[in-house]
């Protein structure tokens, strides 16, 4: 089939999930007739009815809180949070309720809820539309947190997330929504890379670039440029931010001896902090250089005219690669 954009791949994955389990429902703001502001749920309400694809009142805590009740009743809600910056009204329900119910009920209550969040900047948006809050969720025990970076993963990962009996915070790289890739829609889901596995997306032997979501493409572009200068960069798409696939990550770093972590979220206490700390613990004797991090600054996300200075780009990634290689 023709290449498919990430937004479309998610749509196809959601459609499959709705087809395969009558308990799966989609709920969120504008997910019905409009098909979501990014059209990820386009056409689903028309085909599955407004019982399965529900426009909700405009209240994020209400969306997650009622999804919790629906999950207690045996449903598998997929909630759309319209933009990253709007998840915070629901943060209490996610952190204090959704994440903990399985634990506090000693396993008697399962919470198969997916919370989809388009995240990251680079689209020239007004404020609160470009945030990268993934570490705030990965920090919370009881949540699983993943980020897709390409259409093929988007298609499989959203379906895998829906089958999870644990709550999954599903980050979608909104600036890459329209990037296309080939999908194999006939391959059984059981053959796909597991949801919580990282993946080497470009092999190399001089340095490992760790990234997820929108920065995977940036890192792949950087690796291509570095190759022209004779540096063979390995790019690992971390994919799962909680839990992290340490075997894949550490194997890569042991092999290359050098590592740079890249994300849009601010560097301070970002995912890169945890990645760097653990990799250092596990790969200390194989390391040739300290792990460097490239990310957003310790500032609020700036006005969009400044976002290109804020966001890690090819040059900032290559600069860090050069610095890491110079040790």
């Amino acid at each position, binding site marked *: 089939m023709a290449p498919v954009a990430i937004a479309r791949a998610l749509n196809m994955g959601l459609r499959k999930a709705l087809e395969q389990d009558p308990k799966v429902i989609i709920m969120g703001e504008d997910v019905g007739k409009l098909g979501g502001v990014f059209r990820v749920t386009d056409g689903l309400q028309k085909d599955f009815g407004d019982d399965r694809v529900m426009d909700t009142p405009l209240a994020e805590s209400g969306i997650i*809180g009622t999804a919790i009740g629906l999950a*207690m009743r045996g449903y598998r809600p997929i909630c759309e949070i319209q933009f990253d910056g709007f998840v915070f009204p629901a943060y209490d329900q996610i952190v204090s309720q959704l994440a903990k119910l399985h634990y506090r009920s000693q396993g008697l209550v399962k919470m198969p809820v997916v919370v989809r969040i388009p995240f990251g900047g680079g689209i020239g948006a007004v404020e609160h539309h470009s945030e990268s809050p993934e570490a705030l969720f990965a920090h919370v025990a009881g949540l699983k947190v993943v980020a897709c970076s390409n259409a093929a993963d988007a298609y499989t990962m959203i379906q895998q997330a829906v089958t999870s009996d644990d709550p999954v915070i599903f980050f979608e790289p909104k600036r890459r929504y329209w990037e296309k890739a080939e999908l194999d829609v006939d391959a059984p889901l059981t053959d796909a890379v597991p949801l919580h596995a990282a993946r080497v997306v470009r092999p190399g032997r001089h340095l490992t670039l760790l990234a997820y979501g929108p920065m995977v493409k940036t890192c792949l572009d950087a690796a291509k440029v570095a190759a022209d200068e004779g540096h063979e960069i390995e790019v690992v798409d971390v994919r799962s931010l909680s839990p992290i696939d340490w075997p894949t990550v550490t194997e890569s770093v042991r092999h290359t001896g050098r590592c740079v972590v890249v994300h849009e979220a601010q560097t301070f206490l970002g995912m890169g902090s945890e990645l760097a700390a653990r990799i250092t613990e596990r790969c200390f004797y194989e390391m040739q250089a300290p792990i460097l991090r490239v990310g957003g600054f310790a500032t609020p996300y700036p006005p969009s005219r400044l976002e290109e200075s804020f966001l890690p780009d090819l040059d900032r990634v290559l600069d860090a690669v050069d610095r890491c290689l110079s040790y």
Partner: protein
Amino acid sequence: MTADHGVAEYGAGDLVQLLTPEGLRLEHPDYPLEISEDELRGLYRDLALVRRFDTEATALQRQGELGIWASLLGQEAAQIGSGRALHPDDMAFPTYREHGVAWCRGIKPESLLQLFRGVNFGGWDPKAHNFALYTIVIGAQTLHATGYAMGMQRDGSENAVIAYFGDGASSEGDVNEAFIFAASYNAPVVFFLQNNQWAISVPEERQSRIPLFRRAHGFGFPGVRVDGNDVLACLAVTRKALQYARDGQGPFLIEAFTYRMGAHTTSDDPTRYRLASELENWKLRDPIERVKAYLSRNGLADSAFYEAIEAEATEFAARVRAACLSMPEPKPLDIFNRVYAGGSPLVDEERATYDAYLAGYEPADSVGGR
């Protein structure tokens, strides 16, 4: 609004009352109640036993056996009346003070004490009892109740949900969002607001400038104020509200006008913020005394009955105490249990590391295990 925390407002015209504080039976055109003598005596027994349980739990806290206790003293009628209105297949979502409702749902008292002793977060199966775990974040459970009701609606269930919360919670965004979602989807949920006049130290007038039951009208569903110290009125009104929800007419708000006769919890000191005279006034409206007065006046119970209940309560309290004191301590490695349904390599690894760490310090002859 009155500044005497419900003392004067209690008698106002909007209050549904079927049994006066003096034990006189009233009729209400909208809330007729058919009730047998046995049922009446059963309600008295429920009220007396949950009060005795509450007293014992408070004592256990004072003796250091519980970390904290949230007393239901004064709210027995609101909880027993509404709890006994539920069908077994209805679902209840409590706060952390619904010990009387828990009793009606067949929860073992020690399962409640486990939470307050710090052994676990509540030792009952929510599905087996149709009684959710206690929720401590104020008002959060009203959304769960609404979602659950939306699920029932989809399932074509003929049951309803009841969501408990308080006057303080009525200010929370979650409660207001629950009202909106319930109204929008016409969900079969009864919002049962126990207005006990105090949110720790903050009186109801800080939460609302209109009587709380009137809030419902703004959300598009009925709201009724019931005498929360009148078990018959609470039973009748809750029954009707649940039936209204089951019949597909949507949500319903009940404000049970009552009084927290004790402290917020055993960590609180209400003498810092309220007058003793207020409590004295409310004691005259005690939820149990009026049932006793009614039973006695109508020859439905004699001293042998009350003595038997008293003996049962004493024996019950002793059982609760014994169960509390013999509760097994959790083991350190229990920390890692059931964080995820699907497991987690990180949690597994931390468990193994901590296990090895503990093993390294364990005397060879230790018992009890990790």
